[in-house]
């Protein structure tokens, strides 16, 4: 089966608008967890194995004067997954970075969402979050130095494992629109139901 997700990353809303005056925001798109390192190499036990790049970076956006807390990327991504087994359905991991008060690039949020399996157009609002500092002092120093706590691997957010040791703070939302097409899902015996607009074309 293959499923193609064409998802313009449309908008993001950030938690504290004040600090974000004219802040460009790059976004890193890490497609799903533990995918094959590169095409052709042994792939892990997960279905999605996209061909080509697995990680990408979007353009930098800055907030508009009209709505000061909304940042628009409208950044299209095209991913195709192929698998024979729906175990470990692909996810999209987003990490948003933006400069802080001193101009350091700091992480503004991590978030992950499963690629919808129902064909059609979907809109997903991902709540973004960042790991918290372990102490007040750490928080202060990290604010000064611009080295906020980050996940060792952004894919952590797509996994449940080990998450219990982290404490996070929510920071805004990112809206992602998916246009999903699937092929041969039905043939392989998977019924995902009807799409929102009846775009089921199995």
């Amino acid at each position: 089966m293959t499923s193609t997700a064409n998802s313009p990353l449309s908008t993001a809303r950030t938690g504290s608008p004040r600090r974000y005056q004219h802040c460009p925001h790059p976004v890193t798109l890490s497609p799903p967890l533990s995918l094959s390192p590169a095409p052709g190499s042994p792939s892990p036990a997960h279905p999605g194995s996209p061909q080509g790049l697995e990680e990408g970076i979007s353009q930098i956006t800055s907030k508009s004067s009209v709505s000061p807390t909304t940042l628009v990327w409208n950044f299209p991504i095209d991913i195709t997954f192929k698998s024979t087994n729906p175990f470990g359905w692909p996810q999209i991991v987003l990490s948003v970075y933006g400069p802080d008060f001193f101009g350091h690039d700091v992480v503004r949020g991590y978030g992950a969402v499963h690629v919808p399996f129902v064909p059609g157009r979907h809109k997903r609002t991902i709540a973004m979050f960042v790991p918290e500092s372990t102490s007040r002092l750490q928080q202060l120093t990290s604010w000064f130095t611009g080295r906020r706590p980050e996940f060792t691997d952004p894919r952590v957010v797509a996994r449940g494992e080990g998450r219990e040791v982290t404490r996070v703070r929510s920071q805004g939302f990112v809206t992602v629109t998916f246009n999903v097409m699937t092929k041969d899902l039905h043939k392989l015996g998977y019924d995902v139901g009807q799409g929102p607009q009846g775009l089921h074309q199995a």
Partner: protein
Amino acid sequence: MSAARRSDASEAVRELPPVPSTSRTSFAELSVRQRMREKLKAARTKAEITLSQEDPSPQPRHLKGIRERKPGVRLDKTSDNDKFREMSAGESHLPSKVKFRDSVKKLKQKSTFQNDFPSEEEAYNFFTFNFDAVPEKMKAGARKKNGLNEEEEVEEECVETHEDEQEEDEMDDDVRLVKDDDLFIGQTDEDLVVVKPVVCESYTEQLKREKEFLFIPSMLAVPASEKMPRNMQPRYLEDEGLYTGERPVVSQSNQNILENRILRQDQGKEWFGDDGKILALPNPIKQSSTRPPIFSLEEGIAPEFETVYRKAIKMTSTNQYFVGPGDFQGLFQLDIDISGLIFTHHPCFSREHVLAAKLAQLYDQYLARRQKNLTKLLTDKLHALRSAVQYSREGGGDGVPVAQQSIPEYKVEIRQTRRLRDAEQEKDRTLLKTIIKVWKQIKSLRDFQKFTNTPMKLYLRKEEVDQKSDEKAYEAEIQAEIKELLEECMEEYEKKMEEYKTQLHDWKSWKKTQKSKKKKKKDTHVDEESDDHDFGEERIKPIPPRMANSLEIEQQVREKADNCRRKPGEPILVPELTLSGSITPTEQCPRAEVLRREDVKKRSAFIKVLFNSKEVSRTVTRPISSDFRVHFGQIFNLQIINWPESLKLQIYETTGMSSTTLLAEVFLPVPETAVLTGTAPLEEVEFSSDQRVMLDHEGVGSGVSFSFEADGSNKMTFMTSGKVSSSVSWAVGEKGIPLIPPVSQQSTGIPSALKHIDAIASIGTSGLTDMKKLAKWAAEAKLDPNDPNNAALMQLIMISTSGEAHVPDFFRLEQLQQEFNFVSDEEFNRSKRFRLLRLRNEEVAEFRNYKQVPLHEREISEKIFQDYEKRMQERDVIDSKNYLDAHRAVVASYLQKVRESVINRFLIAKHHFILSDLVNEEEIPGLGILGLGLFKLAEPKRPLRPRRKERKKVTAQNLSDGDIKLLVNIIRAYDIPVRKQVMSKLQQPSKSSRSFNEMFAASPSAQSQPNSPDWAFNQVLVRPFVEVSFQRTLCRTTTAEGPSPCWNEELELPFRAPNGDYSTHSLQSVKDEVFINVFDEVLHDAVEDDCERGSGIHTRIERHWLGCVKIPFTTIYFQARIDGTFKINIPPVLLGYSKEKNVGMERGYDSVRNLSEGSYITLFITIEPQLIPGESVREKFDTQEDGKLLQAAEQYEAECTSKFPSRQCLTTVIDLDGKTVFITRYIKPLNPPQELLDAVPDRSQTAAELVARYVALIPFLPDSVSFAGICDLWSTSDQFLYLLAGDEEEHAVLLCNYFLGMGKKAWLITGNAIPEGPTAYVLTLEQSQYVIWNPSTGCFYGQYDTFCPLQNVYCLISCDNIWFNMQEYDSPGRISFDISKPKHWKPFFSRSLPFPGLRSIQPEELTYERSDKAAALELQSRIEKILKDKIMEWRPMRPTRWNRYCTSTLRNFLPLLEQNQGKDIEDDHQAELQKQLGDYRVSGFPIHMPYSEVRPLIEAVHSTGVHTIDVSNVEFALAVYIHAYPQHVLSVWIYVASLVRNR
């Protein structure tokens, strides 16, 4: 009502429709208003009529009336209502205001029963009606009442006019009368208007007045006695155990106010409950809010103002069967199949029909009985019981109490069964008889009426039986019964007899007393009466029971048997009912019958289907056939949304064209959700009707009595009845989904109760089966046991705790698993695909990186599992083939098992994360670092000074084949052996005897060999090059010249991970080694023909192996880079080569001499890109150590590491069982094998060397290979010797223990060495000199040895203490090993923490198995054969010839080598060889290895490249010698040589 609304309303009266107001009374008001409007209209018309009737000038009267009324107005003071009354009384006189009268009348009526307050209607009337002049009057009245001046009437007039004008606008058109007001005002007299100053009431006065009519309830608490009826104690329901819900929270003061207020009311006490509190329903507020938080997407709009599109939804009905809009899933479908209707009685039945119906019924009964066959069953049971009794009686002689006891029970059982059987048999027989009787009746009826109406025919099939056997069985049965009955009677008799006896006894005694009394009486003349009385109680003499007569009983039995049983020999009758008879055609029937038949033909029936009491469909009308069956055969598909409440069929009968009568209603059960179309069976539902029908023809009618007899006796009455055969089922959708609405969960029982209180959320589903847990939870959650919501749960808990219900005492793991299984376990195990997926998920090595598991079973080939299965099988079967040695095989399998268990442990540990695994966080910079940073700023800038830049590290998982390269930089070598001229004069170096004193002489002996000048000249250059082989990939440098060549070349070798798995875990267990071989390139003149010599050069290049360095890949992986000078492992004998021995021939610990001892190569090895080595597992291991000790150890480690972060401090290690053990427990003096000590008894130095060699001969196996996951497992010495594999620690521990056992002073050194990295060495103190031993090679070095592989020293460990190196430097040459100085060595156990006397975990004594020479010999020949085969295999293109002579020579030579430990025999040997193989050019060397398995031997031979020689006439020689040491330690010598015949 406000003024605004007033005007509004009055306008509305005129034309506007009533504006819906927002007030809560709007609806009531609306209706009131409407009513008022109607009334108004009525009144208006009435008024018009009356007006027209009345005289044209009503005004004067009107005025007069007003005037007359005035005093009355003045009088009213009490309330508005009174005023009204007065007003209306006054106004009733006014004929002109007729239209007003009506309403007033009504008011009056109202006021009679409502005395205090105006009703809503009145109030409304008051404000909305056009009380023509009344307001003015009232006003006037009010003013008058105040007794004020009337002078200012003009002003007032003005005001009034103004008001009137206003009113005029407001008034109805038809209320023309208002116009009169103008007139009237114009003529007003002064009395009407009163002028007064503005009255200003003081606040206090106002309050006072307010007090009069306002009631302010007090806030004080009401005493309970007031709230309760008199003489009643408050009753607390909760205490009595009744459920009282939680009351809503109301503040106490509010409550008090409310109570006070209610108490003032009539019957206020009704509001109080028995407990003296206001009645209240339970708090309806949910504990938690169910509304999800709103995330607004639009900026700037408050979320609550956002418009949200919602689909129109249907109102949810309160009906439980209604499927809510939320779960509307489309239409559901119910299929109702109505196949037909059969009348069991119908008015049009003829007599024959009645009988036929009866017969059919009986026959059905018969069939049913036959199917059940109770008689047979009971007979069998009887037989079984009898035989059981028989058996127990026979066996009972032994006195089995159980059997004895059960006999009476059996007997009772037998009696019961017999009774039942007899009853059944009788029933059978009577049924058969009745059938026959009815059939006879039918026959006689048919004969009588001379026509046939029904096709019924009864056949009686006779089954003949064997007369004799039947009779026998019959008789036996009767006899058995008689016997039993007799027994029974006997028992009975005995019992009665017993009774009789006691009674008789009683009677006799009584008699006696009587007699004695009589005697007394005679003597004393007692009162006669009493005597009479006594006689009245005269007892009857008991009658002895009658003995049962066996004949009588037999007669009884026989009679009964005759009655209910088939007679012996009588054939068995089997009735068969068929419908094969012919019906007499109508023409031949009498008139009455013809009429009947015609009537039947006229009749027809249909059925209505009612769903939830609504007719949804009906069948077609079908005529009733002559046999009173109606066939519909229709299926109705009901598409429904609601869950069906009821399904009803109504059966209608139509007669002729006109009348339709409802015969009966039949309710159909709503099918279970499992009943689907196609599987539902047709069911017959009986119905009957109480209709009375009398017919004037042959039909018997219904509800009418009739008789079959001619004389009209024996009357019968039948009602219309019948059966509808139908089936109801749920339809199945296109995709096979049943179209069943979800059942709204109203089901009682545990699940729903649990759902309400959400026990699952709190204790998990598994807890639901665990009653104790559930009960505990219920107790903890403070469930109110009286709450009806919890009833089911409480009952469940009660039952389970009281033990009434069966509670399983086992715990079912994942008891819901069954529900979630998508295939059965069998199928799951059978399926190759699932197996593959499962194995991949389990990360089984073979499948860990398996990509794209095929979708279909057939696409998976069986081969995939072959390897895996083979491995699984081999796990338990010890295959000695691979190991050539039974012991090794056992050890290998044991090791494998240990490895697996350890790996499993680590796999689990690997999934334990700590914060630093997931989150990168900068450490807070300490003051020191800050200071250092500042200092760095001040540092002078030196741009030219080169600095090492850290390479980027790559996580292993992103890699694939070809990404990783091994970089080997070969820089230079020292002291490469040089060629000897073949025919050169043998140098015989003087071999001075070595003495201990000499060896450890502090200063090197300045003994120098006088160099013969020709030696220098004769020296042939060696042309060495280096070949690096890794994973069978070869790479070589260019050829350099001379014994100290300099290559400075970088070689690049690709790296492939096993199975393409580049995870850390897999990389750690790579077993490959990097072989760095040094070769000499020799050019041979290959010109065959001398005459060609002038014209061309034809040389052959030969390479001669000189030595090698082996570095395991794991070492490189963990070290990241290896940089240093390594000793080349040069074979003890290199034919044709010699070492430069000019500097020093003497061996010893001296550094200068050591310089020349071996050849060295300088290397730099690294991996590109740099890999991050796996982190060690931080699992907290079990331990048996004292907690305090561990704490101290941690503290000690922390202290040491903080001072010298680069130095590792080791205090605790993990043993083979995965337990933390304090390190000193490993050190303990142990006895070396006696054999070794015996060999060299006197020379302790030699003995030490021998022991070291023995230890070095134990194969080396790094932990990281066996236990991937980087944990250093330390095995004890006995384990080590048993496993015969271990890494540096085990070797070092064993060697140290041996040295201690030999009485030396020895310590374990932990430190850093090349190439091993962190490792363990042994330090001994030999005659005030410290000697460092490398346990894995058996070599020893002096403290100041330059080429000592140990680079850094961290810790010294003895059996009772640990010392940490606190000196500035840590290279062995620069430190002092004097542990007594705490400044240099920080001890673990000191005065503050004395050594607690930790017991060693080592065994008391090591026992050794004696060396097995025979096994060694066998192994030797096998290895030799394998190696020879291998060499031939490696030379597939050319023949490989073996020189037997040379082989035998070499074989003889090898034991010698072993004896001398490979030292100092080279020249002897060479000379000998030379002598024996004079005309051969021999190049070869012995390889010495410890033996673990064959593979490394093959690798070693291969790496020498002997087989690569491609001279045509080359011959080979290969000899293997294995020397067995105790405990299966084997030293393997392999001598490989190639021989080329000299021309």
